[in-house]
C-alpha cells in the first residue's frame, strides 16, 4: 500500500510521530496491529532492504499514525521523509488487542512500547472501562504522548530510571502494588518488563496481554524468523510473532526463550 506523509514530527531527539494518509489502511486497521514500513523513499535502492515493523498508534479518519524511536538506518531514513512524500507499507498485520467492556484495566508501557496502547485506551474508555496507565522510561525523554492519553485514561502513573519525571522506579514497582485490583492488563515494552508484568499478573490471577516484538523479515508468517514460544497445556508450541501475535497471553509465554 501507499500513503502520503502528512506529518513527520520530531518529539525529541529520540522519537518521531508520523501521520500517514491512507483510507485503505485506515479502514482496515485494528488496535494493537502493526505495519511493515518501507523506510526508503526509492524503490530502486536495496539498502535498507527489508521493511520495518511499527505498531499502529491510532487511526483518525483516513489517516493513521506511527510513533518511532530512532534506532538504526531504517528509522533514521524515516526522519528524512518530508511531509507530502509517498511512503509504502503493508496492510495492517497481526492479531491486535481484544477490547473489553466495563472493566478495570491497567495499561503498562515501557518506552516506545507506548505506541500501540493509545488506540486501545480510547476504545476501552469508550466502552466503559476504568483505565490506568503505568508508563515507565529511562528519563523524561521517554515519556511521550502522555498528554494525548489523558482524555482516555483515568489515572496516569509515570516512572523513570533517573526520576527526571514521575517516580524514580521501574514501572513494575507501582504496578505491582495495584495489580491485583485489575480485571485485565495490556502491556507493551521491553521484554524483561513484559516478563515482570506477566509474572505479577499471574501471581495476582489477572489476565495479561503483552505485545511482543521480534526482528521480522516478512511480517506475514512466511519466513519463520519471529518465533515466540508459548505454553499450550503440557506442550511448548511455536507461534509466529507477526501472525499469531504480536499480542500474546503473557501468562503463556515461555519467557526464558523470549528474553535472551
Amino acid at each position, binding site marked *: 500500500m501507499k500513503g502520503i506523509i502528512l506529518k513527520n514530527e520530531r518529539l525529541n531527539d529520540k522519537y518521531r510521530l508520523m501521520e500517514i494518509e491512507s483510507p485503505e489502511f485506515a479502514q482496515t486497521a485494528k488496535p494493537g496491529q502493526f505495519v511493515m514500513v518501507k523506510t526508503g523513499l526509492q524503490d530502486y535502492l536495496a539498502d535498507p532492504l527489508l521493511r520495518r515493523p511499527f505498531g499502529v498508534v491510532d487511526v483518525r479518519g483516513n489517516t493513521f499514525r506511527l510513533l518511532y524511536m530512532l534506532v538504526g538506518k531504517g528509522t533514521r531514513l524515516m526522519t528524512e521523509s518530508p511531509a507530502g512524500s509517498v511512503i509504502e507499507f503493508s496492510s495492517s498485520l497481526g492479531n491486535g488487542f481484544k477490547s473489553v467492556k466495563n472493566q478495570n484495566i491497567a495499561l503498562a508501557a515501557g518506552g516506545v512500547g507506548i505506541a500501540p496502547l493509545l488506540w486501545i485506551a480510547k476504545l476501552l474508555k469508550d466502552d466503559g472501562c476504568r483505565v490506568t496507565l503505568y508508563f515507565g522510561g529511562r528519563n523524561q525523554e521517554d515519556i511521550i504522548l502522555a498528554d494525548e492519553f489523558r482524555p482516555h485514561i483515568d489515572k496516569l502513573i509515570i516512572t523513570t530510571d533517573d526520576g527526571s519525571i514521575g517516580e524514580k522506579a521501574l514501572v513494575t514497582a507501582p504496578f505491582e502494588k495495584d495489580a491485583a485490583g485489575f480485571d485485565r492488563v495490556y502491556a507493551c515494552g521491553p521484554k524483561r518488563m513484559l516478563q515482570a508484568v506477566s509474572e505479577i499478573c499471574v501471581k495476582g490471577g489477572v489476565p495479561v496481554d503483552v505485545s511482543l516484538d521480534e526482528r521480522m523479515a516478512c511480517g506475514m508468517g512466511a519466513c*519463520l524468523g519471529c518465533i515466540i514460544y508459548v505454553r499450550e497445556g503440557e506442550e511448548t508450541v511455536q507461534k509466529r510473532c507477526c501472525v499469531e501475535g504480536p499480542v500474546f497471553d503473557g501468562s503463556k509465554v515461555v519467557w526464558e526463550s523470549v528474553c535472551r
Partner: protein
Amino acid sequence: MSVLKVNICGVEFKNPVITASGTFGYGLEYARFIDISKLGGISVKGISYNEVRGNPMPRIMETTSGMLNAIGLQNVGVHKFLKEKLPLLRKYDTRVIVNFWGKTIEEYVQVAEILDNADIDMLEMNISCPNVKEGGIAFGSDPSMTAKVVSECRKAIRNKPLLVKLSPNVTDIKPFAKACEDSGADGISAINTLLGMAVNIHTRKPYISNVTGGLSGPAIKPVAVRMVHEVSKVVKIPIVGMGGIIRWEDAAEFFLVGASAVQVGTANFVDPELTLKIVDGLEKYAKSQGLSNISELTGKVDLSK
C-alpha cells in the same frame, strides 16, 4: 502471456517466476496479500519426514543489501504438510514444487517416496542448507556424497521431476552439478545462501543464535549469476536460477547466463508484489527483444570479445 510459458523438466509453468523455498511459507501465507495464482510456481519451505522446530531465536538479521537467516529448516513434516497445507495450496492455479531434505540418505528417500505419490508438480531436493548440521549440507559439500543421495532418491522417485538445489559454499560448483546430472536429476536449482555472520558490537554477540546464517538478497546476486553460469557450462538439464533477484532485470540476467526459470526469495519480504512485477517486466522485456518465448534467452550471454 504465452511468451512466458516455459517447460521445465516436462512440467509446464505459466511463467518462469517461482517463489523460493523458505521465503514463501507454504504459499498460503501470501494468498491474503497477492494473487498467488499469477505466479509460475511456488517452492514450499523445506519439508522433512518429521516435524522440525528449527533453531533458537534470533534467526534473522538484515545486512547491507542482504539478510542472514538461520531458521534451521523449521517445518510441519511431510504428513502434516500433505494433509493440512497442500490441499489448500492446490486450490490456486500455480505449480507446486516441494523442497525437501533429510538427515540421512534414508530420510531423503523416505520423504521423496511419499512426495512422489502426492499431488505436487515437482520435487526440489535441498542438499545445501547451511544452517543445520544434518540438513543435507554434508551431501552438498562433496560431489561423491551428492551423487549418492541423488541417485538413491532418483530410484525412489518415479512420477515426478527432480530438481537438486546446490550450495554456493564450495570451491567449484561444477562437479556438484555434473554429479547431479549424472545421478539422474532432471534439473538444478542454484543457489542456496552463502554462509555468513554478523556480530552486534555492543553486546558482542552474534546477531544469529546459530552464530552463522545464510546470506541472501541483492548482495549475493553477482555470486549467484556466476555460479549459474558455471553450472550451465557443464550440464544439459534445465537450471532454475536464483540469488538476489528483486527486479525483472535481475531475472533476465539469470536467463542470459543459462537459467530456464528463476526463483525469487528475499524479495518476497521486501515487498510481496515484487514477484508479480517481475512477471510483468519479463513479459515486456521478452516482447521488446522480439522473442516468441522467454526461453530463447536462456544461455544467450554474449561472450565474444
